[in-house]
């Protein structure tokens, strides 16, 4: 029995997660496990509710990607109703979804990851945060905060609310867009485009200055899964699923999201409330795949807009014909998506239909079962509902991105741990890198959204008898 190093964010009230790094008898890292100790029970306590309530209940699962839950949920409801929504409603939903993605990605980078990158992994934890960035580079700090705000303001201008928006309803939308709000959104575009290009330049410089680290950072090879549009382009709202192998071969293409249970299987694990998912035909662990920004860009053929397409080509060149696996490139992938989001929002804002007031169709329950799927910032999200004859839910299933990434997340932690943790001594900077590997996946736990400073962490080093032989704590 070897030793166990435990990284445990203890002081947060919610979103508990801890990392166990298992050492073997010779002091080498033998395994790494990411635990999620939080149990929310949405699938259980929503049973018995009327199905049309779900688009409002489920976004409460998360404060960062609530729109994705609303969209997957509302699409499941619309399948139950067998209803088509007006074109304007779909445009507005796509705008809100892009806006959320921009906010979420901006938060992930500027608030959570940039402090490590721009101020240094080993810099003083007290100033390694968004304020530290604002001090070092005030223009960039403010721009980062405003980029996130842009996404939230777009939501607010369409639905009246920044976060848990109300306007997306079965059949379409509750509120039409006004001319003034359209103009206000368009007025923001040049600034956020500039911020995005600045950030991409910054990232590229970082890549160039730290080539070794970037290329070796949790560089696990895995399959990638994501939605693609009919024409093979980047798609968040609709589309089919493509799975590519670690070498870039297409393993499965144009899979219908409605058949997800035929090709995705879950594996509950004893150490975590987070289930692990894999591609069914290949079994576990061969069927482990990743979802999210990196995966989306690895499965698609092209972007929908010109500036994003240009960056996309550079991004894919990094893989030299294979997918880009390095976890460090998540940041780049997110900015390409932000760029696409801004360009697409601009296009949609200029669409003549966007101001139409024909925004909702109506129907009641026309079949018992519904499945809704879309790309959340962190990856494909499925909602699956079964209803009784009255329309009350009797079976609910959510397939969430972080669960699909769970097996790869463990691999990434193991990979980092192997490089940086040796023997029974562990340095603060090494811990940051383990934590950073998790942050790359941007897992949807509130510990990963700890905007100020670091995740509070406790590390315990245990010997084979279970006695703590070393304890390091911060936060």
């Amino acid at each position: 029995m070897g030793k166990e190093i435990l990284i445990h964010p203890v002081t947060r009230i919610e979103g508990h997660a801890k990392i166990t790094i298992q050492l073997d008898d010779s002091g080498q890292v033998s395994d790494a496990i990411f635990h999620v100790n939080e149990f929310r029970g949405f699938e259980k306590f929503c049973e018995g509710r009327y199905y049309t309530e779900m688009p409002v209940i489920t976004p409460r699962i998360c404060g960062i990607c609530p729109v994705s839950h609303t969209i997957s949920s509302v699409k499941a409801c619309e399948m139950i109703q067998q209803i088509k929504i007006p074109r304007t409603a779909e445009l507005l939903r796509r705008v809100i979804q892009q806006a959320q993605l921009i906010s979420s990605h901006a938060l992930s980078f500027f608030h959570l990851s940039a402090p490590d990158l721009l101020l240094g992994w080993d810099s003083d934890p007290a100033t390694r945060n968004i304020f530290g960035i604002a001090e070092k580079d005030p223009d960039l700090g403010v721009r980062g905060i405003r980029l996130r705000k842009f996404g939230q303001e777009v939501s607010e201008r369409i639905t009246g609310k920044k976060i848990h928006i109300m306007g997306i309803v079965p059949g379409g939308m509750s509120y039409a867009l006004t001319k003034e709000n359209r103009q206000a959104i368009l007025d923001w575009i040049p600034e956020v485009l500039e911020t995005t290009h600045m950030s991409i330049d910054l990232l590229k410089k970082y890549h160039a200055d730290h080539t070794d680290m970037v290329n070796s950072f949790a560089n696990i090879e895995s399959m990638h899964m994501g939605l693609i549009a009919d024409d093979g382009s980047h798609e968040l709202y609709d589309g089919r699923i493509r799975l590519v192998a670690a070498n870039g071969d297409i393993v499965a293409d144009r899979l219908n999201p409605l058949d997800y249970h035929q090709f995705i299987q879950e594996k509950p694990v004893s150490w975590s409330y987070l289930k692990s998912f894999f591609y069914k035909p290949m079994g576990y662990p061969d069927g482990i795949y990743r979802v999210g920004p990196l995966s989306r860009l690895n499965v698609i053929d092209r972007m929908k807009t010109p500036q994003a397409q240009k960056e996309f080509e550079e991004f894919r060149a990094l893989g030299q014909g294979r997918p880009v696996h390095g976890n460090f490139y998540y940041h780049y992938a997110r900015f390409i998506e932000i760029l696409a989001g801004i360009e697409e929002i601009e296009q949609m804002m200029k669409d003549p239909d966007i101001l139409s007031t024909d925004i909702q169709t109506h129907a009641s329950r026309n079949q018992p079962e519904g499945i809704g799927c879309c790309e959340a910032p962190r990856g494909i999200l499925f909602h699956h509902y079964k209803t009784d004859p009255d329309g009350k839910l009797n079976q609910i299933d959510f397939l969430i991105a972080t669960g699909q990434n769970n097996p790869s997340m463990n691999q990434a932690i193991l990979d980092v741990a192997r490089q940086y943790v040796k023997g029974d001594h562990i340095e603060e900077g090494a811990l940051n890198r383990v934590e950073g590997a998790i942050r790359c996946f941007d897992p949807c736990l509130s510990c990963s959204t700890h905007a100020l400073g670091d995740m509070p962490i406790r590390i315990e080093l245990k010997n084979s008898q279970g006695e703590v032989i070393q304890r390091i704590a911060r936060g």
Partner: protein
Amino acid sequence: MSKISITINDEPYKVESGQTIMEACKEHNIKIPSMCHFDGLTDVGACRLCLVEIEGQSKLLPSCTTQVEPNQKIRTHSDRLSGHRQMITELFFSERNHVCAVCVANGNCELQDLATEVGMKHVRFPYLFQECEVDASHAMFVIDHNRCIMCTRCVRVCSEVEGAHNWDVKNRGYKVRIISDFDTPWGESESCTSCRKCVEVCPTGSLWSKDKAQGQSKKNPQMIKDLIEKRKVNL
């Protein structure tokens, strides 16, 4: 009808004899919090929010069911009354499962308005977390007992205005529930005419219409009040 003299909050008023204290107050723009009262329906004095102090009486009396009397000295607002009203409101919230954020009536709910009106900041009582049923068997409407505050407006509007008497009450205490017909699923009711009046008068998101998504439910109790007035005229 003859006029009598009363005092409300130290001010003298001439009011119609036979009126309730609530009616007299309303006529003189004195607002008393209320929940079970609904203009035009029989009052039942169920919610106790409209309690007032009457000089010479140690008990507080509901203004919706107490008639004015000559030389009565009434107090509609005092620290004591505010304390009671706040407590009653908190008890509403603690008795069943009110989750405003995901409710159809959010932003358009008399219980929410009441909480603001009485200055409720939080609930001091432990929640009962009762298991309450959601009856979605009716083709058009849902009754969610989690959100019901037992004002019985639905019972009275159905019986007194529509004349159908689909709704009734069973049990006592915290187990009290609104029932449809003889405690059968609403969708199987033989008396319900699907007129929607109960939905319009329900002050909370307990009764709601399936065609309305969250945040779209705008109840129209005034329509029912107008209807009651119009029906009186025709008589």
